[in-house]
């Protein structure tokens, strides 16, 4: 469904050329959940930006459902650590924003927004402004907006990095629930190995900058997953150790 071929991206920073991504080839199937993991600042976010069509690759090509990504890819929902909710709109108006852009009538907008608000557990907060919500609630609002937009692919860039451990688990649970319900394809960028193994069907380990694929690992843990308890199983521990072994090399080299 998403097909990256020998994708590289080079930025020009003043006179200096910075390689962010080098020669990454990756195929992501429909309904697959892929986690991309690597050291901070290694170019993982650049990868997502290219899939979203916000950046064009310096070389190589990206195909989305067989078509070249050349402009903003409106089939994806994008969620970052920053919420990107419009601060002057209430939660409901934020969530209904994609419907408003599509020209859906006001009463229908409100009705459909209220449904997803209930679905992500934000009932009673429809009239609040984003700055009145906690970090976890803002994430819920973003997920609700993506749900209402009906994005067939979710690009998640360290979405839960700023949340505490308990909230993170709740969000993982919600994310898996929604992805299963909607049959969404998910590309998750993270530097949290626990998160990657818990959620993904496949984990791709990136090298430090410029990002290259160091290791791909299938995660054969049964679904639906119990996000709280799956980490205590032996299978999880083995996968975690294998991935960490490879990831440690990247961190180790960085320190030298």
């Amino acid at each position, binding site marked *: 469904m998403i097909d990256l071929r020998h994708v590289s991206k080079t930025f020009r920073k003043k006179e200096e050329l910075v390689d962010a991504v080098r020669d990454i080839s990756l195929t992501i199937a429909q309904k697959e959940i892929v986690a991309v993991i690597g050291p901070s600042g290694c170019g993982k976010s650049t990868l997502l930006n290219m899939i*979203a069509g*916000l950046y064009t690759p310096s070389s190589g090509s990206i195909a989305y459902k067989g078509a070249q990504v050349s402009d*903003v*890819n*409106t089939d*994806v*929902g*994008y969620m*970052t650590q*920053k919420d*990107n909710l*419009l*601060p*002057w709109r209430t939660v409901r108006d934020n969530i209904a*924003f*994609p419907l*408003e*852009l*599509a020209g859906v009538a006001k009463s229908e907008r409100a009705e459909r927004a209220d449904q997803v608000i209930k679905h992500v557990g934000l009932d009673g907060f429809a009239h609040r*402004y984003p*700055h009145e919500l906690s970090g976890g609630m803002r994430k819920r609002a973003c997920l609700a907006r993506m749900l209402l*937009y009906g994005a067939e692919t979710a690009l998640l860039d360290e979405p839960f990095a700023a949340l505490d451990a308990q909230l993170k688990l709740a969000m993982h649970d919600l994310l898996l629930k929604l992805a299963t319900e909607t049959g969404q394809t998910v590309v998750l960028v993270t530097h949290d190995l626990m998160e990657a193994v818990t959620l993904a069907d496949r984990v791709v380990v990136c090298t430090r900058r410029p990002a290259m694929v160091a290791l791909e690992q299938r995660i054969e843990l049964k679904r639906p997953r119990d996000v709280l308890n799956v980490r205590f199983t032996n299978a999880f521990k083995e996968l975690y150790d294998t991935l960490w072994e490879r990831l440690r090399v990247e961190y180790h080299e960085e320190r030298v």
Partner: protein
Amino acid sequence: MTSPDADAVPTSLRDDAANAATRGLGSGFMVTCQVGLGITLLLLWQGASGRLVDNFFISNPLDVGTRLMGWIADGSLFLHMWATIYATLMGFLVGSVGGLILGIWLGVSPFTSRLLNPYLNALNALPKVALAPLFVLWFGLGIESKIALAAVLVLFLVFLNTYAGVREVDQDLIDSARLMKATRAQVIAKVIIPSAMSWVFAGLKISVPYALIGAVLGEMIAANRGLGYLVQFSGSQFDSAGVFAVLIVIALLAVALNFLVEIVQHRMERWRIVGR
């Protein structure tokens, strides 16, 4: 160019500090002191006039009061006041609409803004008052030339603030709207303009006094009515009482305008959260 946050926060802090200082003494006491100071100054003025300083230069409060009463009685004061208020408001309106459109337009088109940058800088650096003779030529001696002068002063202030506000808009918000199939017009209407609103209001607020300055200056240069004309006319007649009388009216008008801005700002407070 003032950032709305930088503008808003210190003012309220200052107000709080002032409130705290006076609260201990009781605000009634402070008002009494303020009125007392005013009366003392008026008495000193009256006393000094003709004894320490020639009455010709500083006139005296009684003459000034008599002049004001005379103008009020024959209604001429209101005619002049209305001319100035009208020119101020119209200039503010025309200038802010122009500044808004220019600011948004240049803010969203990097090519045009870079193209026009040196010319706009030159125009902005130009003392706008020097344009007054040109406006008299173009628009005549009537109210239009005063509106034009007030408008041009307002326009640049509103333009600079709007432009800065539009350039400050979080690119991530724009990108996230584009990913949700927003058209360019929708991005401008639903993301860029609301986001720049707090900057726009800051620009509007600081430009209100400039509208008054433009109107009064325009009237001083060439007019047959308005407070600027009246102050100029009184001066040329060596009528210092008349000059002081008009100055008092202009000061009161300026205070009233500021008060109006405060009220409007208070109502718009909701929008300020936009700045975060």
